[in-house]
């Protein structure tokens, strides 16, 4: 081992050893996420209202991480399928195997009416990329009912909403989103 050429001779060619690793996991849907997904399939976006601070979490977590109290069905609320853009990113897709995107597109964080936190990585549609702005009011474009697959773990909307398009209403004022920008 001490005579290993790779360490003795810095000019020696570097040898590579491919080591392909794949791990399989079973993904489970927790009860809170399952109820959220069932509502999504029905065309509704639901959340939990913290009984202590009244903040509405959509998707629901089953607890309020700020007050550290559990939430449940008694705290269930429905939030609107419309809201406003708080921040966004324009992505330029690099072509690689499996890449389906060909054109620049935008993902946004959206503050839904009736919710106190944003949902992230939402596709914006029917809007020129250079016209996206904070405060832009948008509404959900629902996927056909048989294509509404919720995220297994309840992290987002899954494929239930295919995108968000401008409503044409006046922009929301900065006071509506200043606490929700990163």
């Amino acid at each position: 081992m001490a005579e290993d050429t790779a360490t003795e001779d810095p000019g020696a060619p570097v040898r590579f050893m491919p080591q392909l690793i794949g791990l399989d996991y079973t993904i489970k849907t927790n009860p809170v996420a399952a109820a959220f997904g069932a509502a999504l399939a029905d065309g509704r976006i639901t959340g939990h209202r913290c009984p202590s601070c009244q903040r509405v979490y959509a998707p629901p977590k089953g607890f309020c991480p700020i007050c550290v109290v559990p939430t449940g069905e008694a705290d269930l609320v429905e939030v609107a399928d419309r809201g406003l853009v708080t921040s966004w990113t324009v992505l330029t897709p690099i072509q690689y195997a499996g890449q389906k995107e060909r054109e620049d597109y935008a993902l946004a964080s959206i503050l839904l009416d009736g919710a106190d936190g944003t949902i992230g990585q939402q596709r914006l549609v029917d809007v020129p990329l250079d016209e996206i702005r904070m405060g832009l009011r948008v509404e959900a474009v629902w996927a056909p009912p048989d294509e509404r697959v919720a995220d297994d773990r309840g992290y987002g909307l899954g494929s239930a909403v295919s995108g968000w398009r401008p409503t044409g209403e006046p922009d929301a004022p900065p006071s509506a989103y200043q606490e929700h920008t990163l």
Partner: protein
Amino acid sequence: MRDVAIVSFATTGPLPAVDDTETQMLFPVISEAIERSGIPRADIGFTCSGSADYLAGTPFAFVGNLEAVGAWPPISESHVDMDGAWAMYEAWVRLQHGDVDVALAFSSGISSRSDLREVLCLQNDPYYLMPLWADHGSLAGLQARAVAEAGLVDEVVDTVAAPPASDGAAAVIMVAGDRAREVCERPAWIRGIEHRSDPHYIGVRDLADVPSAQVAAAAAGVGGGPIDLAELSAAHPHEEVLLRRAMGLADLVEVNAGADPLMVAGLAHIGAAATAIHEGRAGRTLGHAASGPCLQQNLVCVMEGTP
């Protein structure tokens, strides 16, 4: 050294296969440990967690788990990719600094959603053992044979039971000095806590011995008095044999051994050893945690009921 005691403990115990997220599983356990301590959540000066995102296959799960703590306003916290016993060790070190008096240590593990034999291969060295996919169950089999061939057990064990695949969570509250006496009738005072590691590469080890457990036990002061109860992280019977020999516990009657669930077992054993003191069932106890294949790393915590 500053006097530090475990004043409360909570755990789920081994769960067969949870539907909840890791954070949802942790939530009631952390709350229970805090409530049992009688200390307001806001008084916790340091928080440390132990978990491994590879188990449930959720990247940055350890960050999301902080939602079960109450991390707003921002708190001082840290994480180890190890059994919660090492999170507890870091919290103990933090309390030695002297500027905070209360610490929370917790851990969680969801092993039911993967093939542990595959996942735990990734803890082997990447050059010699990992490419062989030498899983920890097979390596435990090698150690069982080495133990048998060394004459430490009566008969050769040809098969080693499947590794644990349960889920679970645990949490302890640790308090320094007089505050511990105020909140707990019989605090479990940490008299010694040490951890050591044997070489990473299995091939250079004598698998019929666990020097790291022996050194850690000696450094933690195990031999300084009689142990009433030992809680050992031993996934297999031959591991208990090795640990008893290494720590000088060969004849101890009160031993609870088991290593289920992964990432939680060590902290849960220490918590159980502390609880025995809280409840007046024991005066001097030992809690042990192990990590890595073939008892590679060992942590020993000696606790006493008398200040």
